[in-house]
């Protein structure tokens, strides 16, 4: 196989190019213009998932046979770059949707696939990924949500917190302990015993419609388990998070690009000390750093994409590396862009202050910077034969 976004045959390269061009035009027309308002209101337009589904953006990792319109990993990345530059919250919602769709495409039974994937590809069913809990973040194996055997099925107890799209999603991929082993379940919204509590918009990704999920004797049939008992973290969540990290890496490339564009535009037009500020060498230094970071982040993301395309196991660490670098560089670019715009960059409604806040969140989600460092260092030590 290849990694999830390349699982099924995709259109030939020239069609992918056209696809990319259409997606870019759609993002510029429909998503970028609304991004600041979404951020201010802390919500996405209700019609967004179905609109994105109509344009094929909800089926990027769904096989054609299930109604999807899959793209290769590089095209997938370039679409996420464009989304990241336009609206990081929309990108995050699509990423978690893709994580769930990819997990179903990879590990679900044929019945589960037929049940969910066509609707997910159309954007009628939006997926959300529920791993984090009030007491459990980075140390995922410590999850406390429990699936207790009950009759022919299970009864779930526990809470999930910070769930992107939790307010609007129709289907949750939930990680719970079953027979003491981490196990994945597919749980639709509206299942009795599941209550959904909206969270106030956080620092960044304010429009990502986060929620807390509460399971209290939430009874589900055995057929809602995804993959066998015990495969929830090592296989199902690991592969979903790997795709999520790839999306975040490219989203950060987009954020850096957006910061650079905003900063250079302003540097050309803002006159201080009788010259456009771009003529001040200290401003040039800041712009040079952003430009170099953009190139480096994109190259790392491309390198990960090429490995993913061929199903190479090294694609996993290459993706961590790209995500780690790109998230830090996006944070740096956000700070720099605000600096170059000065007070204008701090103003309510200014896109660059949104980029800065969104970039901070990128350093935390899909494995924080520190967790990426642990994984990258472990790999480096293994390659040097010291572990």
């Amino acid at each position: 196989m290849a990694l999830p976004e390349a699982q099924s045959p995709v259109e030939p390269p020239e069609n992918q190019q056209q696809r990319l061009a259409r997606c870019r035009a759609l993002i510029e027309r429909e998503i970028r213009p609304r991004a600041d308002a979404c951020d201010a209101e802390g919500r996405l337009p209700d019609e967004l998932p179905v609109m994105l589904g109509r344009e094929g953006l909800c089926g990027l990792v769904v096989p054609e046979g299930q109604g999807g319109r899959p793209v290769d990993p590089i095209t997938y990345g370039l679409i996420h770059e464009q989304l990241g530059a336009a609206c990081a919250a929309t990108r995050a919602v699509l990423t978690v949707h893709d994580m769930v769709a990819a997990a179903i495409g990879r590990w679900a039974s044929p019945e589960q696939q037929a049940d969910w994937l066509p609707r997910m590809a159309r954007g009628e069913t939006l997926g959300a990924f529920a791993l984090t809990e009030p007491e459990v973040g980075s140390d995922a194996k410590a999850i406390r949500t429990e699936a207790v055997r009950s009759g022919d099925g299970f009864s779930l107890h526990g809470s999930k917190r910070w769930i992107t799209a939790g307010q609007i999603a129709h289907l949750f991929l939930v990680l719970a302990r079953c027979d003491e082993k981490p196990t994945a379940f597919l749980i639709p919204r509206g299942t009795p015993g599941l209550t959904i509590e909206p969270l106030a918009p956080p620092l960044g990704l304010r429009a990502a419609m986060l929620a807390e999920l509460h399971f209290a004797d939430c009874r589900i049939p055995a057929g809602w388990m995804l993959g066998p008992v015990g495969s929830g973290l090592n296989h199902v969540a690991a592969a979903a998070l790997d795709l999520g990290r790839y999306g975040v890496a490219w989203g950060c490339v987009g954020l850096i690009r957006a910061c650079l564009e905003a900063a250079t535009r302003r540097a050309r037009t803002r006159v201080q000390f009788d010259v456009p500020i771009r003529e001040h060498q200290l401003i040039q230094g800041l712009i040079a750093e952003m430009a170099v970071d953009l190139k480096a982040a994109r190259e790392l993301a491309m390198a990960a994409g090429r490995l993913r395309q061929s199903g190479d196991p090294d694609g996993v660490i290459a993706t961590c590396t790209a995500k780690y670098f790109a998230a830090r560089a996006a944070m740096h670019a956000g700070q720099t862009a605000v600096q170059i715009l000065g007070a204008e960059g701090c103003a309510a409604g200014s896109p660059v202050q949104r980029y800065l806040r969104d970039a901070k969140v990128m350093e935390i989600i899909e494995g924080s910077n520190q967790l990426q460092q642990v994984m990258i260092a472990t790999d480096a030590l293994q390659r040097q034969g010291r572990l």
Partner: protein
Amino acid sequence: MKIRDFLGRFFGDYQLRDDEDIFGVGFVNSLFAMQLVLFIEKEFGITVGNEDLSLANFRSIGAMAELIERKRSGG
């Protein structure tokens, strides 16, 4: 043997026996299982499905060799 070479990267100088539990010796992190599945699929041209995900199939070098043999013979 290809599986042993691949595992060598994670296990360094540690000499794994064919029947030794690779998850039990404490060298691997949360990415390892995914990397292992990708390696087996790419190297041996098979597709690991959800019915194969039981830990028993990946527990040791011997168990993986059996899984690959079984999948290749269409079983």
